[in-house]
């Protein structure tokens, strides 16, 4: 199951209003694109859906698979299958990427203690996914996002997402700063999760990634609201005309 519904969501930060009544529904098994000019509130929306404590939800609902998650803490939302691939993944010094991956892996499978068998399977799975994403196994010895290039960070975000096997993923500008091969790798990683039980909101500025991902629907945000919704044809319109045509 992976459907997400946002109803009349109003959000402020430090007293400043940034989301002004978002209404959005992503159906089960759908991948939707979320586009819009810089500062329109796309990243804020994804952080609010995940539950970042800095944002104040003033009104509205966030419903995941029929359950209002607004009162839940971020880790509880993660346990319900929500995942956020960050636009700018933060460095976490001293915390090993392998440790975080293991945590994600064991939580997904309900493992408490690392048995030799579970560790072996974990290692096998990670190795396969590293290869899929074109990452060297030496990355496993790194700290979370420690000393990684922008593109490497994006790919380790994708790696975590693959291990988490989320029911609903928000993928925030995973394509920015990626060369064409990495972009293909990341897009096919997302694509591999696709299915009846997986929904996703792909935030992007560019058509490129959508050429690979083929979104079921496209939503355009402006000034903290959904300003337009439609099919894939909207992407072409944006490429040609920019955002100028959107009604203020």
């Amino acid at each position, binding site marked *: 199951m992976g459907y997400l519904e946002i109803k009349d969501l109003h959000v402020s930060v430090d007293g400043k209003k940034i989301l002004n009544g978002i209404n959005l529904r992503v159906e089960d098994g759908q991948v939707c694109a979320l586009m819009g000019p810089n500062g329109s509130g796309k990243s804020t929306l994804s952080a609010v859906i995940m539950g970042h404590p*800095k944002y104040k939800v003033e009104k509205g609902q966030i419903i995941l698979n029929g359950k209002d998650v607004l009162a839940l803490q971020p880790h509880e939302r993660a*346990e319900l299958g929500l*995942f956020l691939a960050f636009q700018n993944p*933060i460095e976490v010094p*001293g915390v090993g990427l392998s440790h975080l991956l293991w945590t994600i892996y064991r*939580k997904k499978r309900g493992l408490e203690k690392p048995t030799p068998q579970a560790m072996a399977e974990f290692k096998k799975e990670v190795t396969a996914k590293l290869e899929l994403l074109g990452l060297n196994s030496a990355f496993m010895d790194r700290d979370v996002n420690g000393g990684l290039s922008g593109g490497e960070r994006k790919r380790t975000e994708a790696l975590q997402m693959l291990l988490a096997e989320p029911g609903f993923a928000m993928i925030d500008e995973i394509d920015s700063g990626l060369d064409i091969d990495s972009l293909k790798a990341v897009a096919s990683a997302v694509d591999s999760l696709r299915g009846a039980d997986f929904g996703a909101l792909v935030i992007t500025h560019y058509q490129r990634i959508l050429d690979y991902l083929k979104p079921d629907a496209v939503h355009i945000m402006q000034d903290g609201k959904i300003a337009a919704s439609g099919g894939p044809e909207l992407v072409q319109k944006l490429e040609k005309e920019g955002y100028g045509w959107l009604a203020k």
Partner: protein
Amino acid sequence: MTANIEVNQKYAEKYGWHDDLQYTHVTQVGLTESTVREISAVKKEPKWMLDFRLLALKIFEQKPMPKWGANLSDIDFQKTIYYMRPSDKKTGNWDDVPEDIKRTFDKLGIPEAERKFLAGVGAQYDSEVVYHKIREDLEKKGVIFTDTDSALQEHPEIFKKHFGTVVPAADNKFAALNSAVWSGGSFLYVPAGVHVDIPLQAYFRINAKNVGQFERTLIIAEEGSSVHYIEGCSAPSYSQDSLHAAVVEVIAKKNAKVRYTTIQNWSNNVYNLVTKRAHAHEGATVEWLDGNLGSKVTMKYPSVMLLGPDSKAEILSIAYAGQGMNQDAGSKVFHFAPRTTSRILSKSLSKNGGKSVFRGLVRIMKGATGAQAHMKCDALILDKQSKSDTIPSLEIGEEDSKAGHEATCSRINEDQLFYLASRGLSPDAARNALVLGFVAPFTKELPMEYAIELNRLITLEMEGNG
């Protein structure tokens, strides 16, 4: 408040209990010349040592209490017991250790650790070492690992040549106190060219109430040798304060390498006032790894005198200051010779109103050409009630040298917490991961067993912080 009670209860369970023991010799409460004479007589010491002690007592009495650093005004020297002998036997056979003492160290996991991963072990109970053992092959190579009292009796020449040469009695008030009433501690001698491949460990346990522990450790690494020595400490949680004033002297001769690791985990009624200093001769390396958890007040600044050219000092430390604790710790390095290098890295954590202070001093003397020094201290403050101070000092007397200093002071980063939470970590687990990550540059240097234990201790301290 609840969090702290919980932490103390956990300390109480693991370390905070005490055993009721019949001591074989106890001096009267308080410190006079006759206390010092009594200690020396009980130990049947040579006259030079008695004279050394008596002179040190005079110095102690003349020196004022330090006016800087932590508040020491509550220490009452006349309420402390300076010498308590738990047993008349010292033994290298675990079966011969008196039952009640054995029970203590069994609970602390000492003999188990020896079997698993140590080349030798010493165990001190209040004033005296009750057990000392070294792997036979090392003994055959001439390595001496015994308690300091036995070394004075059994190896008088090596002893007298080195004792008190690194930390003189007049160094500071507490070094003088230790010099007057010292008892126990480790004596480690590594002959030229001998490499001790796995660590040697001593464990210091305060058991009785009101007792002071004044061990004296002396490590001599002869030319081209290497050794890693580890010490651990703990004490019961009494309502009265205890005093721990140790002196540690390390001598690393030409091209020798000494690593000295401390994981202290005192209960929060202990004044921990320790002088640790090393001499590094030509090409030698001295590494202090100093982990400070617990205690009421700690004042401790492991230092290295880089005496010979190309010698190296590395000092890594962590300090955790919880409720009612003041960790005043730091490091000192003196560069006396050309091409000497030093690196200081200090990590401090403060929580529940604890206060941690880092004092760092690097002095590069004229003539220490090509010397390089780097000092870094990172403080992590875990709540609004807690405090951290950084007092670094670089004194450069030689133009042809390089010295740098960095300091960071931070609180738990909300975005890092959120990142980990989005991966399914609970707030406690995420905070714990960040704290352990913060101290990782220290823990990754420890032998695995100690790294795990230290992470576990920090996790215990962190628990219940909602």
